[in-house]
Each structure stands twice: as C-alpha cells, then as structure tokens.
C-alpha cells in the first residue's frame, strides 16, 4: 500500500495476496462469460466445461483463505493492511459464490434445449450487465478506485430493474401457454443467478471503499455511499 514497510517481504506478500484475488476474479469472469455465451449459443460442450472448471474456483478460495490466515499470524497487520486482508477474505467468498452461479447457469442451460428465444435474449443482455459489473468491481480493487466502486453500487439498481422486467415477461408467457411453465421457471432461475452476480459485485465494491476509506458502507443508501467515496 501507500507506505512501505521496513520488511520488503511483507509488502510483497500483501501485493501477492491482492494479485491472487484478482487472478481468481479473472477465472470467475471467464466462467460467467462462458456460461452466458454457451447458454445463448446452446453449446453444451462449453457449458459442460464451465461445470467441470468450477472446482478450480473453489480450490483458489481455500488457498487464498489459507494465505490470509498465514499473513495475519505472521505479520499481525494493522490499519490499512488489516483492512485489506479482511476485505480479501470477504471478496473471496463473494467470488466463490459468483463461480457457483456460473455453474448453476451452465447446469440449467444444459437441460433446456429449446429455451424460448425472446426471454433468452433478455437474459443474455442482463448477463452482459452482470459481467460488466463484476469486471468493474475487480478493476476497482486493482486500482483501489473508490469512485468506480461507488458507480457499481448504483449500477446494481439497474440490474435489479432488468430482472423485474424479465419476470414480468415470463409471467405473460406462462399465462398465455401453461406448457411453457417449466421452461419459464428455468429461465427465471438463470435470471436470478445473474441478478445475484450483480449483488456480489456490489458487495465487492463496498469492500474496496472499506479498504481505501476505512468506512463501512454496507446497508446504507446509494447517495451516502457516493458521498463517502468522493469525500
């Protein structure tokens, strides 16, 4: 971080920790991207790959958690360093959940061969927003950019609105033709999974603000968060 420690190794350890989280983030990003693209193209091979690769995300979570506890035990970090380690522990949990959502999307996409095109296009659009939020959250962590982090928290409102629109659309489908119900429920699960990705990205963005500013911005209004991030 900003100030150098007398032990160079300590700095390197902290830097390596952040890099490993971002590496895990990259893996999760590619998992989500593959799941959404595979779903849109109906490519089962890609979806299968997403499901088999999920264990890599899980393995990274365990390994980074171990790194964190070693770092706390060995260096007893304080102030900004401690906040970084605490934030990493939480971000890793969020990332692992996003990885699970990717596997869930892949599993649902694999069953439904004939998912209806119209709502699927909406789901793909929503997937694009979700992937964008995750990417921006990780960028904000890499750059320790609180302004970008605050923008992500605002974007979460947008993805929630998108989700509600898809739900309305699906309800119309189901009322018109009850035979589409099982299919519509599958799509609903997928949309919900993407909506959760937005929530997790928002959590990560809040942790970035916590690392930099030292204030906890969970469970407060977007306007307040923005004031904290800019101030």
């Amino acid at each position: 971080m900003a100030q150098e420690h007398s032990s160079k190794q300590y700095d390197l350890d902290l830097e390596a920790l952040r890099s490993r989280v971002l590496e895990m983030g990259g893996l999760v990003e590619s998992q989500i991207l593959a799941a959404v693209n595979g779903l849109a193209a109906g490519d089962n091979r890609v979806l299968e790959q997403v499901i088999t690769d999920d264990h890599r995300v899980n393995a990274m979570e365990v390994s980074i958690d171990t790194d964190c506890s070693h770092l706390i035990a060995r260096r007893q970090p304080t102030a900004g360093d401690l906040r970084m380690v605490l934030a990493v522990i939480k971000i890793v949990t969020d990332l692992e959940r996003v990885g699970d959502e990717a596997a869930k999307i892949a599993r649902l996409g694999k069953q439904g061969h004939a998912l209806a095109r119209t709502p699927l296009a909406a789901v793909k659009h929503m997937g694009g927003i979700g992937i964008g939020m995750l990417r921006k959250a990780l960028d904000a962590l890499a750059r320790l950019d609180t302004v970008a982090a605050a923008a992500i928290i605002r974007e979460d409102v947008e993805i929630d609105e998108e989700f509600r629109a898809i739900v309305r659309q699906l309800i119309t489908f189901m009322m018109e033709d009850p035979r589409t119900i099982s299919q519509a429920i599958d799509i609903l699960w997928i949309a919900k999974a993407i909506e959760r990705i937005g929530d997790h990205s928002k959590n990560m963005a809040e942790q970035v603000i916590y690392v930099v500013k030292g204030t906890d911005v969970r469970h407060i209004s977007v306007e307040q968060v923005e004031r904290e991030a800019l101030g």
Partner: protein
Amino acid sequence: MDHLVLRTVFLIAGIAAGAFLPGLLFGATAGVIFFAGALVALLLHHIRHVALLAQWLNQPQTQPGQVPRGSGIWDNVFALLYRYERVKTQEHQLLAKTLVRFRQAGRVHPDGVMILDAENRIEWCNDTAEHHFDLSLDSDHGQPIANLLRQPEFIAYLEACDYSNPLELRAARTSAIILSLQIIPYGDAQKLLLSRDVTRLEKLESMRRDFVANVSHELRTPLTVLSGFLETIRELDLDPQRVQDYSNLMVEQCRRMQCIVDDLLTLSTLESAPSPSLDERIRMSPLLARLRADAEALSGGKHRIFFDVSGDFDLLGSENEIVSALGNLVSNAIRYTPDGGEIRVLWRATADEAEYAIEDTGIGFAPEHIPRLTERFYRVDRGRSRATGGTGLGLAIVKHILNRHQAALDIRSEPGKGSRFAVRFPPRRIVPAATADVVAQEMP
C-alpha cells in the same frame, strides 16, 4: 590543485610578512594579533564560500540553479564547477530529447506496445495498447499487468515463460476486438508486450473457411442427385421413357455444376487479371438496347420493363465485363420479381457522374443482409435462390467487376416492396458519346 595550495601558502606568507611591520612598530604582541586577525578573516572567507557551496548542493536535483560566484581561490573552484555543471546539463538535455523522440516513435506505432518490469508491472505503454486493453497509463502505471488483464489464458501465458508463440485473445473490455499478444523478454528481466488487432484477419480466415465449405456444399447437391439417378438406372430395369426423364434431370444438374464452375473460373480470372484499361470505349446506346432485348426475352412478357435513358455518354473499360455485370443485375431483378411486377432500368449520365440503376417491385430483403450480399454463396434465403437457378456467385462477380472499374454499388431494399441496385461510375471513366462517323472510323 597544486596551484591552489601554492596560492594559499603564498597568501599566508604574505600575511606573515604584513604582520612583520606592525610587529616592528608596536611590538611582537601587536604582530601576533595582526597575524591571528588576518587568519580569522581568511577562515571566515572560506566558511562563507563553503556555506555558498553547501547551499548550492542542497538544491533539488531536478532544477539546479546558477553555480555561486566566489572570490580568491574559490573563484577558480566555482569556475571548474560551473563548467562541469554546464556539460552535464547539455548531456541531460540531449538524453531527455532522445528519450522523448523514442517515446514518440513508440506512441505512433500501429501495434500496441507495453513495457513490463521484472515483476510484470506496467512501466510504459503506447496509445494503441491503452486502447486494446482499455487502460490508462496515467492511473495504471506500476500496476501488475495480471491485475488488469485477468483472463486465465493470459495469466497462464505470462507465467509459462514460453513466449515462442503468440497468444490469441478476445479483449475482455472491448469484446469486439480479437488480439494477438506476444511477449518478448529483453534487457534486465524486462518484457515487451506487443498486441496486434487481428479481428480482420480472423474474419477473413472464417470467410475463407466458409467459402471452401460452401463450394463443396454447392457442388455436392447436384452431384448427389446425379449419382442417385445413375445408381437407379444401373440397378433397376426401367422403361425407356423413365430413363429419358432421368437423363434430362441429370443433364440439368450437370449444367448447374457447369455454371458454378464457370462462375468460379470467372471470379478467379477477374481476381488475377490487371485492371481494365481506359482505352476501350463502351458504346452505351447499343449496350442498353441489348440489355433490353435480353431482359424481355428472359421475362417472356411476364413483367413490365421500362428503360429510362438520359445523357449521351459512353464508358471506358472492358465491354465484356460491364455487359456481364449490368446484365446480371437485370436478370436478378427479373428472377426475384413475381409475374406482373415492374422493373425500371435507369441510365443517367453527365460528364461528372454516370448512374445505372435497377428498381424492381420484387420480394426484396431485410437491410441486415446488404453488407454480406456480395459475399460468395451468401444466400438471403437458402431455399429460394437455388430454386430460381442462381449459383450464388452472381453478385460477387458484379462487385468484382465494378471494383475493377472503380465503380460503386449501392443497394437498398425493403422486404415485400422491392429493391434498388445502383451502380455509380467515376468521372474518369465517362466520355461524351461517339458520333456515328467517329465510330465508323474506329471500327474498320
């Protein structure tokens, strides 16, 4: 140095000699007091100059000020220092200028260039690299590259340390770009990361793959029909009438394959032949008359065909090619317009621009097909055009011919309403129409 010491010795000797006089006049004590006082004055002089030197040395290195001026031996010392300082400043300016020039050269490089240090941190990159990876050097300087380029494929490539082959990657932030990345280690554990936009190459490659697949597919369909009939005739004992029918169908399929092969050969000739010269004159009025006769014959009276000609100008170029291109557009219009429809051929020529346009009231097509319409074997509707007997190469040939004549093809269409194909020729290919006697002279 020696003469500085010598000067100091002489100065002290001078002071001693000077002290001798008050010593003689007022006694030894006065001489010693004078001597000591002069030495203290000398010491103060030195201390003042040392302080000046220290003050100068203490300035920030980035903008050294003027070297102080001194007196006595310090003048010599400061003069040396001044000279040294001036040489250094010149060298520094020269180096800075060279560095700026190199950076500028790197900036305008069409490929992305990024310099990474031993820990893979971003040290410098040019504008193209900023665009490719969507980052900004100002804010991301010193950031480990893997923190921003997080794709697992890239991290694996970076860590594998085997950079003999480039890595193809879809850019994460601007997903429309496909990049070819290459790392080149150099110097003291530094790395050069080159990125090149290969989106176009990738597209061409996929077009080539599609082309081969399409050719095989187009030829296989008639071939399957042909071999099917041949097997039937060989295996079964058929009456002569059936054999006759089958033979007719087989001949038709052979003709179809012939057409495709002919068109492919035409295309390949057009691709390899040099651009048509400006010497050959194409007389437009007989050409239009011929197009009209061909159109009416092809339509067989099922369409209303209008020719609207204005402007007495001829074209320069290859007559065979232009006839084939313009004729192709007319026959397309007739084929894709249902019976009773209307086809309007316009020829408007001035000295500055000549336009040949065909409007029909045919079935038309959606605008999204327009950019791909002149691709080989591109079909708006797979079933439809084969039924009307097209090879799928007609518009590709037209496009090629027009390109060779520097003419532009403008396509507009609306499904169910009809289409408009317009060809515009550049001024250098337009000449006033030849009068009959000039033509008579030209044609022996």
